[in-house]
C-alpha cells in the first residue's frame, strides 16, 4: 500500500456511521433523520431526485460541512469533534472525486495525480510518476498525463479526478456523480473499475449518482433521499428496493431496472 498510516482508521466495523443527521443550508432544512452504516468493502449509492441533498450529504460525510444535528462517525471518532490533526489523518484515508472534477488548473493531469503521492507517501519522483500513470491508465487517461485540465472535456476531467482520488489506494472512496457526462462505454468501464476496487482492493465506496444502470450494476445497497419528505425513505439492495420500497422509490428505480439488467456488469 502506498499510503502508510492505514492504522489511523479505527479498527472495528462499520467503517462509517451516520447517526440521525440533519442537513441544512442557511434558512432551509434539506434532509433530516439520515442514519446508515457503511461496512468495509461495501458500495453504497446515494440516490434521489435533483436538489434532494445527495452532494450535500457527501460533503457532510467528508467533513467539509458540519451537520445541523446528528453525527458522522469513523469508528468511534465523531468527525465534528475531531481536532485538526485527527481530521487531516482521517481525510488521508479517503479519496474524494468532486462533481466537476476539481482538478487544479495550474497543474498538468499527471501532476494532479502525483501531488498526493509526493505529499503523503514515501515514493520518490519516478515511482510517484509510475503510480500516477498506472492510476490514469485505469481510467483510460494515461495519454493526457502532460495535458492541462483546461484542455480536457468534462468527462475526461472526471476520469482524471477519479485517478487522483485513487492515488493513495484509500480504503474509502467518495465519488460524486462520476459517470455523469461520460459515454456509455466509459461509464461501463467506470462501473467495472469500481467493482474491481471493491473486489480486489477491498475499497469501500460511497457513490452519488443519478445513473440507474450504474446503481443496478455496482451498488450493494442504495439509500434514497426524498426531496419532498426531506428524509431517507429507503435503504436496501437495489433489486430488493424494487419490491419493498415505497412507491416513489420504485418509480425512480423502475426506469433503470430494464437498462441495468441488460447493461454492463
Amino acid at each position, binding site marked *: 500500500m502506498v499510503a502508510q498510516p492505514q492504522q489511523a482508521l479505527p479498527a472495528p466495523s462499520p467503517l462509517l456511521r451516520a447517526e440521525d443527521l440533519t442537513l441544512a443550508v442557511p434558512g432551509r432544512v434539506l434532509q433530516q433523520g439520515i442514519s446508515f452504516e457503511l461496512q468495509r468493502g461495501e458500495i453504497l449509492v446515494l440516490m434521489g431526485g435533483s436538489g434532494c441533498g445527495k452532494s450535500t450529504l457527501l460533503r457532510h460525510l467528508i467533513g467539509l460541512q458540519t451537520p445541523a444535528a446528528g453525527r458522522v462517525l469513523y469508528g468511534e471518532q465523531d468527525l465534528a469533534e475531531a481536532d485538526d490533526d485527527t481530521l487531516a489523518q482521517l481525510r488521508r484515508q479517503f479519496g474524494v472525486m468532486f462533481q466537476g472534477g476539481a482538478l487544479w*488548473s495550474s497543474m498538468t493531469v499527471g501532476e494532479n495525480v502525483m501531488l498526493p503521492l509526493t505529499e503523503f507517501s514515501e515514493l520518490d519522483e519516478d515511482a510517484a510518476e509510475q503510480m500516477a*500513470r*498506472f492510476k490514469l*491508465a485505469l481510467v483510460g487517461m494515461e495519454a493526457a*498525463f502532460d495535458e492541462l485540465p483546461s484542455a480536457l472535456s468534462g468527462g475526461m476531467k472526471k476520469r482524471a479526478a477519479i485517478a487522483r482520488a485513487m492515488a493513495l489506494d484509500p480504503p474509502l472512496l467518495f465519488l460524486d456523480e462520476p459517470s455523469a457526462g461520460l459515454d456509455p462505454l466509459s461509464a461501463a*468501464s467506470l462501473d*467495472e473499475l469500481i467493482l474491481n476496487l471493491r473486489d480486489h482492493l477491498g475499497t469501500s465506496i460511497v457513490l452519488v449518482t443519478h445513473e440507474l444502470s450504474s446503481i443496478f450494476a455496482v451498488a450493494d445497497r442504495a439509500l434514497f433521499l426524498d426531496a419532498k419528505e426531506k428524509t431517507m425513505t429507503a435503504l436496501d439492495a437495489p433489486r430488493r428496493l424494487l419490491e419493498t420500497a415505497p412507491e416513489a422509490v420504485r418509480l425512480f428505480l423502475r426506469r433503470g431496472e430494464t437498462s441495468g439488467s441488460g447493461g454492463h456488469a
Partner: protein
Amino acid sequence: MGEAQQGDAGAGQAAQAQWQQDESGLRLRLSGDWRGGPLLPPPPEPQDSTDPLGAARPLLLHVDGQALSHFDSRLAAQLWALSRSRQQALNTEALPPGLRGMLDLAARQSAGDTPNGKRRPRWLTRIGLDWQARYRRTRDTLAFTGELLIAVYRALRGSTAMRGEDLAQQLHATGPASLPIVTLVSFLVGLIIAYMGAAQLQRLGAQAFMADLVTIGVVREIAALMTGIMLAGRVGAAFAAQLGSMQANEEIDALRALGLNPVEHLVLPRVLAMALMAPLLTTFAAVVGMLAGMLVAVGIFHVELLDYLYRSSKAITLAHAGIGLLKGTVYGVLVAMAGCRQGLHAGRSAQAVGEATTAAVVQAIIWIVIAASALTIAFQRLGW
C-alpha cells in the same frame, strides 16, 4: 492492495523476481510478499520472434505470480510501466485475480494510447507560434474595438439590446463604490504634491504660488491619472474576472448560441458606466486633491486662506478643467475596454481567469500611460 489465494503462508517470504526466457517468450516469475514497494529487477534485452511468414511481431511479456503471497498497487504500477517501456503487452493469466483485474482493465482502457510525453517544439516553431499568438491577440483587440463601436452606434440610434438594469448596476459598481479609495488616494497625492512643490517654492520665497502648482497639476493631470489607475485596479480587474468567469462557465457561449451579442449585453453597459462615471470621479478626485493641497499650504506653510483660494480660482481655466475631464473619460473608457477585452477572451479555467485579470490591469495601465503621453503632447502643441 491485496493478497493471493494461498492465504498468509507466504507473508513472511521476501519478495523475489526472476527473469526467464523460454519458448513462449520472456517470463517474469514473482514470489513472496511484494507489499511496501520492492523494485523489480531490470529485464534482459528483448528478443523478437518471427511468425511463419517472417514478419516481426511484438512478444507478450508473461508474468507468473502464482507464488505471490501479498502485493500492492506499487507492484501493479511497476508491471504497467514495464509493459509500456518495452511496448509489450502483459500476459496476466498466471497472476492473482486482483492484480490481473487491475492490469487487464488498464490495458483495455488504454488501448491505442501513446503515453509518450509532449515534444517541446523547436525554437523556430516557438518563435512562429509566439508571433502567431501576438497576431491573434492584436486581431482580437481590433475586432473587439470594432464590435464595441458598432454597439455604441446602435445605442445612439436607440436600437440597443443592452438592459437598463445592467447599466444601473454597473454605474453603482463603478462610481459610488469607488469613492472611498478615490478619496483616500487623491487626498494623499494632493498632500504629496503640495509638500514637494512648497519645498522648492519656499527656496525662492514663492510659497504663494503653491495654489497655482497644486490646482493646475491636480485638475489638469494628476486627478485623471490617479483615477484611471485606481479604476484599472479596482474596476477593470473586476470586469475581467466577471467576464472571464462567465467565459469559463460557458455563459458567454450561451448568449452567442441564443443569437445575443455579448458585447451589447456585457461590454456596453460596463464601458458606458465607466464613460459616465470616470469624469465625475475625476472631478471629485480633483476637489479632494486641491483640499489636501490647501491644508498643507495654510496649515504648514502659513499661506493666507483667502489668498490661496483667490489664486486657486484664478489658476483654474476652462481649458485645464476640460482637459482634465477629457483625460479622465479617456482613461476610464480604456480601463473598461481592457478589462472587458481580456475577460471575453479568457481561457476556461480558474488560472486563465487570474491571467486575464492580471493582463487587464497591466494593459489598462499601459494604455493609460500611452494615452496620457499622446494627449499631453497634443494639447501642448495646440497651446491649450
